[in-house]
């Protein structure tokens, strides 16, 4: 058994930033199912928001965020995010991140959807890559201890507080216990519940699922962000920066259709609105091949495309065989971000003492019903630092963990996995994964109805029943990715059910959650956060109030 003051699960930007904060004073270990530099943060393209220009202000950033969230974000948390934004950007700049620059040497900022100012700091279209590599370098400098390629299988409770985690060492196939006084979940989103997703294949929401199973509620799971522009075919992200730099969206009649949906903001309306606009164009027969629209960058010219969007050009050439300097890019909306996650407060604290959540795995909530582009990288760094500080304070007085519950938990997990591996014949996990992803793509997408959601819920529950008989086939203990992917599937099935339940219960349209049978926002009934709790095998839905503040709840138009 291992013992640490704190365990951080996940080594993307959030997890690394927490670990850096803790490393100086405490024994901290970061467990990640991949090498830290393979975390999904590396794929963030467009940028990181901070009110740093002369006329901009944190209040303006906060207002845009709250309005973008369709008033579901907690305004006190948004205030913390936006006030701390410049600090987060500057800290990373001083650590060495190579931001793009203005002629006079300042950090360059580009316009992004739903923002009143060009507020998004960027490093070409590889902002996440630059921030992650820099933050990882700093974690190495601080001597953070890493357990790379360790898959966390459960949280260990010790009475009313956390006692540690159990984890599978992927290289050996052995299960180990980790006793810890505090555990921070920083495992990112769960986009792979869907088939058409911009997310890395590893984004399976393991941290959210183990928290749910440990009795911690998930919040606002129905709010799934569909990025308007993902590459037709592979669903790889085409950054909002492409529209920020002036890209046009065109339907098959060569019309800039955004004028019908957001005449003032056009292509730079928030993501939920642009995604619905594209879906509507396609549904009404104005898409290409009945499926996608064009993102046209040609008028930007070769020089600008090469300088500001080199990664996008590379993606188009390698994954679609087109050069955006010469041809428009075929795009359609795809799952992109999970606004929902582990229910926690502004310090990352959950209902389980000593258990914290941060980043996309968490729902604090800063994004409410719709996240603005450039706010997720920001969330990871701002709250990575602050949650690290909160954990640090907690550790001053937190009691030592006991070994016994951790050992017992490891024993139970070993038994459970052996049981799973013993099934000689049964369902192929890959088949069940395909069904789950198809159900989510088709019935829990940009537009939703009661009928579809009910069907989806039924089908996911059938898949869960079938999962009991899943058979992995013969493999070795070492690097058994068939096992890892099956455990991920089990996690995702719980998350899929949570998303559908939240969506079915929320009889209104708000932000990214759009019900065709309830096309209006209903503040009377639903200006509230959804909570999903799992007790044994039963999921229940409840609600809690949104923290309102200085910004009055208004109708949202762009």
């Amino acid at each position: 058994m291992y013992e640490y003051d704190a365990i951080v699960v996940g080594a993307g930007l959030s997890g690394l930033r927490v670990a850096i904060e803790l490393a100086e004073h405490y024994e901290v270990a970061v467990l990640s199912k991949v090498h830290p530099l393979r975390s999904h943060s590396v794929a963030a393209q467009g940028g990181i928001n901070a009110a740093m220009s002369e006329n901009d202000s944190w209040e303006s950033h906060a207002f845009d965020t709250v309005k973008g969230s369709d008033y579901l974000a907690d305004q006190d948390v948004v205030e913390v995010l936006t006030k701390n934004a410049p600090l987060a950007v500057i800290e990373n700049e001083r650590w060495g991140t190579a931001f793009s620059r203005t002629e006079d040497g300042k950090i360059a900022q580009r316009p992004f959807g739903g923002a009143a100012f060009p507020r998004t700091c960027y490093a070409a279209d590889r902002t996440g890559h630059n921030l992650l590599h820099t933050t990882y370098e700093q974690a190495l400098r601080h001597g953070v201890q890493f357990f790379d390629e360790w898959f966390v299988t459960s949280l260990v409770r010790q009475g009313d507080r956390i006692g540690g985690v159990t984890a599978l060492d992927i290289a050996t196939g052995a299960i180990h216990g980790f006793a810890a006084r505090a555990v921070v979940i920083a495992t990112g989103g769960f986009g792979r519940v869907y088939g058409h997703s911009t997310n890395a294949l590893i984004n399976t929401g393991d941290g959210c699922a183990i928290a749910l199973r440990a009795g911690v509620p998930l919040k606002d799971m129905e709010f799934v962000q569909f990025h308007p522009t993902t590459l037709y075919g592979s669903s790889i992200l085409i950054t909002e920066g492409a529209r920020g730099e002036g890209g046009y969206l065109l339907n098959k009649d060569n019309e800039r259709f955004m004028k019908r949906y957001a005449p003032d903001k056009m292509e730079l309306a928030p993501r939920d609105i642009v995604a619905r606009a594209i879906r509507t164009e396609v549904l009404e027969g104005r898409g290409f091949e009945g499926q996608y629209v064009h993102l046209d960058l040609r008028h930007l010219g070769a020089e600008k495309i090469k300088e500001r969007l080199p990664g996008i050009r590379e993606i188009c050439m390698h994954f679609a065989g087109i050069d955006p300097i010469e041809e428009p890019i075929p795009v359609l909306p795809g799952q992109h971000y999970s606004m929902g996650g582990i229910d926690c407060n502004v310090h990352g604290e959950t209902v389980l003492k000593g258990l914290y959540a941060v980043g996309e795995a968490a729902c604090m909530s800063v994004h409410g019903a719709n996240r603005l582009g450039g706010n997720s990288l920001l969330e990871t760094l701002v709250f990575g630092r602050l949650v690290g500080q909160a954990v640090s304070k907690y550790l001053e007085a937190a009691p030592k963990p006991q070994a016994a519950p951790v050992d017992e938990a490891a024993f139970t997990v070993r038994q459970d996995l052996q049981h799973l591996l013993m099934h000689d014949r049964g369902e192929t996990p890959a088949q069940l994964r395909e069904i789950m992803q198809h159900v989510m793509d088709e019935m829990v997408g940009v537009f939703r109805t009661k009928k579809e959601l009910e069907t989806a819920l039924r089908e996911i529950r059938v898949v869960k029943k079938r999962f009991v008989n899943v058979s992995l086939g013969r493999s070795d203990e070492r690097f058994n990715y068939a096992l890892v992917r099956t455990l991920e599937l089990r996690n995702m099935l719980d998350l899929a059910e949570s998303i559908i339940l939240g969506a079915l219960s929320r009889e209104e349209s708000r932000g990214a959650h759009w019900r065709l049978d309830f096309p209006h926002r209903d503040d009377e009934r639903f200006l509230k956060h959804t909570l999903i709790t799992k007790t044994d095998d039963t999921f229940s839905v409840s609600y809690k109030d949104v923290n309102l503040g200085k910004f009055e709840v208004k109708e949202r138009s762009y």
Partner: protein
Amino acid sequence: MLFRVARSRSGEKISHYDLYKVDVKKGMTVLDALFQIQNYMDPSLSFRYSCRGAVCGSCAMLINKVPRLACRTQILELADTKVKLKPFLALTEAPLGWNPESEVLVEPLPNLPILKDLIVDMAPFFDALKQLELWVVPKEGTEPRKQSPEERKLIDRYVNCILCGLCYGSCPVNAEHKEYLGPAALAKSWRFYQDTRIEERERYLQAALAPNGAPLCDLVMNCVRVCPKDVAPGGAIRRIKQSGSS
């Protein structure tokens, strides 16, 4: 299409090759094919993956004797993508029966210890970052530093490195000298040395000039040819050598 995939259950060396028949459609990548095998034919096949969009660097492997990212390698275009590399044993020794016309050959990335199947131990590769202390020790301060676009351009290609290890696996020097730090770490040293924002830049250059660093490089430039991000480590190493001798 047939896939001839190197297997190694207990690591160290390739023990045999398995042949799989994969249903290939237009747009399919080698990574897609590996998943088809793992999902429906052979769950015991191990390989790394993450982003599937050529930004994370997980799926570096040897495909038709060229180090490549599996996620970015289109199967149907493989026949047309020849890369001329200076040969060493791992790149020249083909398994018996491999027919390059009709079969895709997939093997672990050379020059690193095999752990299982297509998974190699990346520790020697990543350890160089720690050995060379490739990070910034920030000065106190609360203002962002200034950097002109021209100064930013000096480091542009090097900051794009995703540390996938393709350069390391393509390098004849790495094949021969286990202690050689390799192209990626040296390119990263040069990136910091060229970063005008940093004081005490000299230490990155000195670190790169260690006996197991730039001096070992033969300027073969395989690293430049296989780099998926145009980082071109060889150019950086050439400059490190020049700076060291002047």
